[in-house]
């Protein structure tokens, strides 16, 4: 019997070699994980801090009740926030019903066939399409095609063509539909998940007492799915509120000194001179004598502007626009339930972008102030959605 080489036998009651090192690596990683999380959360803090620091002092009541102006000290976001609300109303009216119905269809009704898979592929792909491509589509279909009924729809009655020309083009309706299509996947997916979460017994109970499929869906599935749908709608709306690129594409204006809720007869927005079919001056050096009918501003072709009063007579270069400044009283008095859909508009993100791209430091201050308002609204909406989702998960136990 040979001697046993005991030097190679380790003490099995001791820790395996290197465990301390491996434990240390564990803790070391936790530090890195926390650090990465802090960088993410720190970005939010830095973002808010930067905006408050730059523009916080500009958040006065006057900022919300003034039109934009070439004088940054007087400029405000009145037309921008009114425009944003109107665009969002149009977006919601378009996207919520279609998104909900589509979600219900895919979850409750759709047969397993190629058409259904085509729809599902479309919904999934739409969610990943860059927003600016929605803008390009809107330019092609809503602005150029439907907005020029005289060119494409000559066979239709004139009154019909006129209302199409009023509604489409660079209008709130176009903006609303475009953003509505953009957030459609968000609402469809949220609806599907919410509807899927309603237990089968609810449907069977209703069907057993003789309800039709639609009655079951409408009265027994949708009500229970509603909180989930609302969460999706809020997130979609918040996304639409912050979207800039597609609205730049369809021609959201960068300088609006009127509220888009006045009636057409007010000559609220008029470009001077002989224009080509696209609205640009044919001869930029030509001028024209203009009688100003309303108090307001004139925006020159180089985008400087000056205040004008009713009764003034001015010599204006072609391509400049006269805008009457409509106050709240005028706006409310001339409210028309349909006209606003066809009106020119600006929105908060475009207003902020416009101010950000100007060189003067004072404009950057109001850009920051506008950004702060925008950020507050989006964070508020998303916070609500998060809370709603959290409470939903806690309260409903099927």
């Amino acid at each position, binding site marked *: 019997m040979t001697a046993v080489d005991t030097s190679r036998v380790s003490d099995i009651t001791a820790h*395996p070699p290197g465990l301390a090192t*491996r434990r240390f690596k*564990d803790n070391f*990683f*936790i530090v890195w*994980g*926390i650090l*990465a*999380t802090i*960088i*993410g959360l720190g*970005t*939010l803090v*830095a*973002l808010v801090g*930067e*905006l408050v620091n730059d523009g916080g002092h500009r958040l006065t009541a006057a900022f919300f009740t003034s039109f934009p102006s070439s004088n940054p000290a007087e400029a405000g976001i009145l037309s921008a926030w009114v425009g944003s609300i109107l665009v969002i109303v149009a977006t919601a009216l378009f996207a919520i019903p*279609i998104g*909900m119905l*589509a979600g219900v*269809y*895919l979850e409750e*009704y759709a047969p397993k066939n190629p058409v259904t898979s085509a*729809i599902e592929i*479309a919904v999934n*792909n739409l969610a*990943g*399409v*860059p927003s*600016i*491509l929605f803008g*390009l*589509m809107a*330019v092609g*279909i809503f602005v*150029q095609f439907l907005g020029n009924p005289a060119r494409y729809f000559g066979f239709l009655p004139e009154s019909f063509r006129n209302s199409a020309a009023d509604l489409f083009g660079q209008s709130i309706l176009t903006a609303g539909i475009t953003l509505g*299509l953009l957030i*459609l996947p968000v609402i*469809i997916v949220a609806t599907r998940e919410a509807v899927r979460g309603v237990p089968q017994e609810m449907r069977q109970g209703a069907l057993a007492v003789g309800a039709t499929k*639609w009655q079951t869906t409408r009265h027994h599935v949708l009500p229970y799915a509603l909180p989930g749908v609302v969460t999706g709608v809020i*997130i979609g709306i918040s*996304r639409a509120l*912050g979207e*800039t*690129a597609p609205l730049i594409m369809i021609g959201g204006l960068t300088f609006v000194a009127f509220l888009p809720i006045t009636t057409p007869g007010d000559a609220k927005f008029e470009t001077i001179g002989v224009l*080509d*079919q696209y609205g640009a001056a044919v001869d930029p050096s030509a001028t024209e004598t203009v009688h100003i009918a309303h108090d307001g501003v004139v925006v020159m072709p180089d985008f400087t502007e000056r205040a004008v009063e009713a009764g003034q007579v001015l010599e204006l270069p072609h391509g400049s626009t006269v805008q009457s400044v409509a106050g709240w009283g005028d706006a409310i008095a001339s409210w028309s339930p349909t006209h606003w859909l066809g009106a020119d508009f600006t929105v908060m*993100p475009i207003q*902020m*972008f416009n101010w*950000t791209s100007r060189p003067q430091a004072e404009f950057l201050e109001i*850009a920051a102030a506008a*950004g702060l308002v925008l*950020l507050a609204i989006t964070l508020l*909406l*998303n*916070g609500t959605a*998060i809370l709603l*989702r*959290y409470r939903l998960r806690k309260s409903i136990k099927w």
Partner: protein
Amino acid sequence: MEGVLFAAAAVAVAVVLGIIFVVVSESSKFFAQVSVIEFLTSTTWTPLFDNPQYGIAPLLTGTFMSTLVALAVAVPLGLLVAIYLSEFAGPRTRETIKPTLELLAAVPTVVYGYFALLFVTPLLQGWLRPFGIELPGFNLLSAGLVMGLMIIPYIASLSEDAMRAVPRSMREGSFAMGATRLETAFRVVAPAAVSGIVGAVILGMSRAIGETMIVVVAGGQLPQMVSSPTQQGATVTAFIAQVALGDLPFGTLAYNSIFAAGLALLLLTLLFNFVAFYLQRRYREAY
């Protein structure tokens, strides 16, 4: 009623077809006047000059550079956060941090543009100066960096979902063999969740490719062949927005060039969607 519901669902298909139709038909007008060869091989993009040249390459280099910077920021940070939240943090921490981080994706991009231009760029200028690098006021580095911060939640949230979907028994098996949490995370959980993680990264990437406002505000809008992130440059999206902001009439060749750029963007996005789909299939682990 079923017909109404079907019509609503069919809208999604109509939108996809609408986007493809508009982009293809308008850019075919562009390609009737500019050869595809020039579009793909020329390295100058100056549609707004007197002697216009239409080579998409400068815009593509701008897009790739800003996306690369964004991924360099978002992939490590996003995966660190995901692994930390999924494998190390307690449920309370996770339930608080995850939705808060998701707010990063909800911030309007024009606000991010402002942040990149007026906070990140001056900060980086100060940091890089000691190294002899003069960062211009407009550059793709800060645009890409902020874009990276924006897509952290996409990568972190979706990767975390994928890792949490890995069954508990696999972790328990690994722990029983004496592995630490970190070893389990990297050698068992992450490989099992790889298809979800890849999907998350590609989703973040296509967000970065399609992002417009951050680059328009902070990137400089100058279409040139970009070889370093410290240069200014234009992305495909930034060029499209820049033309839309100008006074070019619809229907001119220069205006139609945005549809050609849009077509390039569409193909790029579809390509990555396809790659993500393929990779997810290829590496799917089913339990």
